């Protein structure tokens, strides 16, 4: 449901792993790189801590877009966590597409502790994408046909 209201700001939830992406967000902050204040960062020990249900729950709680950030493949602090996360998110996102939830409300991005710039760019582009999609309605309406 695209909105015309220029001032509408999407609510974005970003799950960031403690070791790389959260540090990347920190670096973005200390380097004074701008990213929208509507991004709510939730720190997780590792990207694979994110149960697919967390993503759904974030939408239920009002998120318009949910992004998962972790260490680059091969660099996970726990060696392989992000490989498992990758398969889970691939399947979950594919299912959401299949159900007709607008593509682009979910994303996975690998951001290292040194990539403050990538973090801020990723958030800016993700927020912009979700802003064009408008508020998330469909997931909550999946079972509401009169």
């Amino acid at each position, binding site marked *: 449901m695209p909105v015309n209201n220029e001032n509408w700001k999407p609510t974005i939830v970003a799950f960031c792993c403690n070791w790389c992406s959260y540090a990347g967000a920190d670096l973005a902050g200390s380097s004074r790189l701008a990213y929208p204040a509507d991004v709510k960062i939730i720190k997780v020990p590792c990207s694979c801590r994110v149960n697919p249900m967390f993503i759904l729950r974030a939408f239920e709680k009002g998120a318009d877009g949910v992004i998962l950030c972790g260490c680059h493949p091969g660099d996970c602090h726990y060696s392989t966590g992000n490989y498992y996360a990758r398969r889970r998110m691939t399947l979950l*996102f594919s299912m959401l*597409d299949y159900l007709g939830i607008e*593509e682009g409300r979910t994303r*996975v991005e690998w951001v290292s502790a040194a990539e403050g710039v990538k973090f801020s760019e990723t958030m800016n582009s993700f927020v912009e994408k979700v802003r064009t999609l408008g508020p998330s309605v469909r997931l909550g309406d999946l079972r509401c046909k009169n």
Partner: protein
Amino acid sequence: MQELIHRAKSLLESGEVSRVLGWKKGENVFDVEPAFFATAEELENFVYNGFCGANLSKYMIEASTWEGKTLVFLKPCDTYSFNQLCKEHRIDREKAYIIGVGCKGKLKAEKLGAENILDVQGAGYPDCSDTLKVTTLYGEQEVAYKDAMLERCHVCKGKEHQVYDELIGESVDTCDADRFAEVAKIEAMSPEEKFAFFQAELSKCIRCNACRNVCPACSCRKCIFDSTKFDSNQKANTTSFEEKMFHIIRAFHVAGRCTDCGECSRVCPQGIPLHLFNRKFIKDINNLYGEYQAGVDIDAKAPLTSFRTDDAEPGVGRG
């Protein structure tokens, strides 16, 4: 059917098995229900016909905790679930004596296209006929056996039993459709069409939890859809989250473990094509991570508990 009863009796009498897991007669020919039989006399009520679609594998979880072996009758598709449950250490192979029964396709009473049914002729096993004669309060009508078959029989994975101790009865090939054709059709729709389709289907759900209860992959001791407030195995404390996401969550919980046994779609009182969820995951897994059929190889690595370093990235290939 007599052959099955005969074998059950002799296995009980020899002491090889302590009980039999099969089906017992109901009021009508299609009202068969899964049941345990402890003695030869009880087998009087044993029945086996085209309506014995239920997958008995899940009952073996409980039976695995009992003394002695249980004789269980499994169709080819049921044996995948049995294997999967062994893989997950939910049932004990040593506690089961498996008679693999041949299959000529199983029937769904709702597909007979009749009400007030008094009797159905031609739905026996092994002797069934191509045309079923349905006697109703209002007279007789005929329906092709094939037309009354469960959806899953039209996309049957094959008539090979994956695990058994002995085999009884012949099978016929019932597969006449592509298992993933319906999924592919939906994939080709626009997001709006997809959403309209699933919204219409899922809005019918009454949250009876029958799909969860029947599913062999849903064998968690404590399910997230159980009530935390009441000592009941049914949902009661539903939150809106649970209500809305039920189907996605359940499909995800069984992803990589669902054998596509078809039980969820068979039991849904609202006729929701639940297989469309599970098969979507199976199709994706096959495409992205290599062909995988749950319940074939007990030692195989499950797709969601393994990875390759060059796996596809989430959402790659989206518009």
